[in-house]
């Protein structure tokens, strides 16, 4: 007979997920703090800044939104840009779909809402190990850990951000944030080509209004990288 402690339990899966997600918070919390502070500088209300974190819950898309809000872009442009920036989630969704097939619609919706870059990175490793009956509790643990940290760090950024003097050039934290998110994505030659051609095209298409040049450049660069990878 198995001892109770070695049996998989929902609670244990959940806290294993929390524990394994924790180290990645070091990369998430600074972005949350900076986001809260920059949102106020872009003219977003405190409630609006927290609302972006609560409803969209996707760091890079939220930062891009700030740029568009400051540029007074139309709603449709903002929604389309958020969609393109978040398209990568389709890949995560595809990768985890067979593991959530047996779950209720409520569980699927909850795990989908919590599906971020960092949570996916941790959760997908759990599915390589055996005993998957309760693994969705593990995934919930990773996602909730990240969610709580993102909401709290946004709130702290909102409360603290207003007291940062203009002389600190806090606006420069935005390109530095994108740089820090970009570097880990450069894992091989096609990803470098995607980033560099997107940068070059974005500069050429800068005259287009509302950062549409940025979205166009990104989509064209994805095409270039796909073709390059296929020809190799």
């Amino acid at each position, binding site marked *: 007979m198995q001892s109770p402690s070695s049996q998989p339990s929902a609670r244990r899966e959940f806290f294993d997920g929390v524990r394994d997600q924790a180290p990645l918070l070091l990369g998430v919390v600074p972005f949350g703090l900076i986001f809260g502070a920059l949102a106020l500088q872009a003219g977003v209300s405190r409630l609006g800044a927290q609302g972006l974190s609560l409803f969209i819950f996707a760091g890079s*898309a939220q930062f891009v939104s700030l740029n568009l809000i400051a540029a007074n872009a139309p709603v449709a442009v903002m929604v389309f840009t958020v969609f393109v920036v978040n398209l990568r989630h389709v890949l995560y969704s595809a990768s985890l*779909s067979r593991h*959530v097939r047996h779950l209720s619609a409520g569980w699927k919706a909850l795990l989908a809402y919590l599906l971020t870059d960092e949570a996916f990175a941790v959760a997908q490793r759990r599915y390589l190990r055996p005993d998957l009956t309760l693994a969705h509790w593990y995934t919930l643990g990773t996602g909730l850990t990240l969610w709580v940290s993102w909401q709290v760090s946004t709130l702290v950024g909102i409360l603290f951000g207003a007291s940062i003097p203009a002389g600190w*050039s806090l606006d420069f934290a935005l390109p*530095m944030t*994108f740089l*820090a998110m970009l570097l880990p994505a450069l894992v091989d030659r096609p990803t470098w080509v995607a980033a560099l051609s997107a940068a070059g095209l974005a500069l050429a298409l800068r005259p287009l209004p509302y950062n549409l040049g940025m979205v166009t*450049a990104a989509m064209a660069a994805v095409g270039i990288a796909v073709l390059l990878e296929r020809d190799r």
Partner: protein
Amino acid sequence: MSTTSFWLAVVGGMLVTFATRVSFFALPHLDRLPPLFLRGLRFVPAAVLGALLATLLATPIAELGWGTAWPRLAAAAVAGLAGLRTRNTWITIGLGMVTLWGLQAVLR
């Protein structure tokens, strides 16, 4: 941007973001999508972030001119090189900010 437009954009952003995340959970048969599309998804983060970074670094040059904007480019270069070596979020952002502050203090 008006309050109404802002919250419309937030709700729209929420819907499209959730759609990308729930896509294959709700419709597992999406794997019949063209393989080129699925392979392209891998490059979305690098492409989007590369385009964003270039746009954000070019904006001060266009608005303030090279004379005022060059410390930002120099700071970005330092942060980029340090970030490539360390792959550390804190070092990348921190060193970029510190380099900019240092240059601004020296040039004042």
